[in-house]
């Protein structure tokens, strides 16, 4: 029996994604981003993102089918992000998925976006190691998860208690007069700077914080420390060395992310680390992860950058895994859940 053909829809933030996946084979991955529309606001504006989803959805569907060379009638199941994410954005995807499921008379799976980030690597590197630790870092999330199998509940070991890592990048970029989104521009500026020029704080790494927040993250204090440092220089009439600030900030973020990810693997006795989310494309994070996982004897898996950012294929993978595992499809009256816990894979 061939693996089921699943269509996955993603609309939880500023990316409209439609993917077609058969088992571990990626057939189409159409993503329309509204990131440019948010640039002048310095962050994602939910209403702007939601309007863009409505405009992009049908063209993305058509192009995905074209790319895959499949007819919608061949699809075995429809999967869609049911949360977490922005409510007004999520509903566009869920409404689309329900219409597809009813019109095609196929099962509907409302799935967890975070699990999608974990699962997508099967398209690049085959079945996931079991168990594995996953580090998800993006503008919307910063989490460490323990994954035993895509279709069984995922356990959250820790997450950010304030800003997501990507948000901290956006805010620091703005502070330095760099454009939105901050991730790529800070990464680029940092390449010319000295990561040890300024000793910025590493959030939740002091021994007293580790008691309660061993695998949690905090980037709000770091962001404020950078702001204070930059403002003090400006106030004193001195130049702000943008490259050094960017490099030192990035070093602080990546140091904490990688240290906690490796510590989580060791604490759980797990030999495989997966990374996902938009920040997984960051060059310093990748380099430091490679260095530290190698030193600790941990295998590192990272999907290609186009699969790290939000997309429909990752949602299709979760739907396919649920279908194969015999998970009951979602009911037709499901809503969306902006705070869907990662322990719920299918709603």
């Amino acid at each position, binding site marked *: 029996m061939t693996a089921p053909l699943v269509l996955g829809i993603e609309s939880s933030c500023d990316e409209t994604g439609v993917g077609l996946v058969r088992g571990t084979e990626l057939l189409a991955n159409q993503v329309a981003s509204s990131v440019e529309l948010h640039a*002048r*606001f*310095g*962050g994602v*504006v939910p*209403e*702007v993102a*939601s*309007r863009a*989803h*409505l405009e992009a*959805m*049908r063209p993305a*569907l*058509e192009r995905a089918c074209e790319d895959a060379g499949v007819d*919608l009638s061949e699809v075995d199941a429809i999967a869609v992000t049911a949360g977490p994410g922005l*409510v*007004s954005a999520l*509903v*566009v995807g*869920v*409404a*689309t998925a*329900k*219409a*597809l499921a*009813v*019109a*095609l008379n196929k099962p509907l799976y409302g799935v967890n976006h975070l699990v999608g980030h974990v699962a997508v690597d099967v398209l690049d590197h085959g079945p996931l190691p079991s168990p594995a630790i996953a580090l998800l870092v993006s503008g919307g999330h910063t989490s460490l998860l323990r994954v035993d199998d895509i279709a069984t509940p995922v356990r959250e070991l820790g997450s950010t208690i304030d800003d997501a890592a990507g948000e901290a990048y956006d805010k620091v970029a*703005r*502070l330095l007069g760099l454009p*939105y989104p901050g991730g790529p521009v800070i990464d680029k500026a940092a390449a010319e700077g000295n990561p040890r020029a300024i000793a910025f704080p590493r959030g939740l790494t002091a021994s007293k914080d580790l008691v309660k927040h061993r695998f949690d993250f905090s980037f709000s204090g770091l962001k*404020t420390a950078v*702001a*204070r440092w930059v*403002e*003090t220089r400006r*106030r004193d009439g001195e130049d702000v060395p943008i490259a050094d600030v960017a490099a030192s900030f990035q070093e602080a973020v990546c140091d904490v992310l990688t240290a906690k990810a490796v510590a989580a693997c060791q604490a759980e006795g797990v030999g495989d680390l997966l990374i996902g989310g938009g920040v997984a494309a960051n060059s310093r994070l990748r380099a430091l992860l490679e260095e530290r996982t190698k030193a600790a004897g941990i295998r590192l898996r990272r999907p290609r950058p186009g699969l790290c950012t939000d997309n429909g294929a990752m949602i299709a993978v979760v739907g396919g895994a649920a279908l194969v595992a015999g998970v009951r499809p979602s009911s*037709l*009256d*499901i*809503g*969306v859940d902006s705070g869907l816990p990662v322990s719920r894979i299918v709603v």
Partner: protein
Amino acid sequence: MSESDSGLWLGIDTSTSVSVALARPGHVLASRSVTATNVHVEQLMPLVKDVMAESGHVLADLAGVVVGIGPGPFTGLRVGIVTAQTLAYVLDVPVRGVCSLDVVALSVAATKPGRGFTVVSDARRKELYWATYDLAGHRVGGPHVTYPEDVPTGLVVGPAADLYDLAGERHVVALDPGIVASSPERLPDLGTEPLYLRRPDAQVATSVKTVLTGRRP
């Protein structure tokens, strides 16, 4: 007669509540509404299934889909529109978009009001969506979004007619999805872009707030 003249049309409107009907031109076969205003994504497809089941038809029988494009609260509005677009795409049938206030106007015109009137619906934030109509139900002004005091006096009808203390004669008239589905000749096709009438709420990023406190040393 073309297929669209005699065929089966599904009508959807999510500009206020969630409303669905199945009809042939001039003849409604089944109709359903849910009045709660925050269950659009939950209830729309179950209602579509209900009207199909009640009439003994399947979606493949449809000649087309008509959807109300508002004005109305955005999140719910988009649920209806993307659903209509997707159904039409999968079934390979046309999709038409109609002004939701025009739909209410048609049912008011059928009561022979004898004069022109204004249709109002709730725009939240202490504002109303409204448009003006002649006695035959043809739109002559709007749609607009304004504070209630800027709505013309006279005969005021629609889902939000009693929401504020408006001058003149007022009658609450809900949107009838049967009219959406059964009146292809009388409701102009406006395309499926929502009638937002408002820009997204968003602040353009300006200066960064200071984090320095206390006086300069």
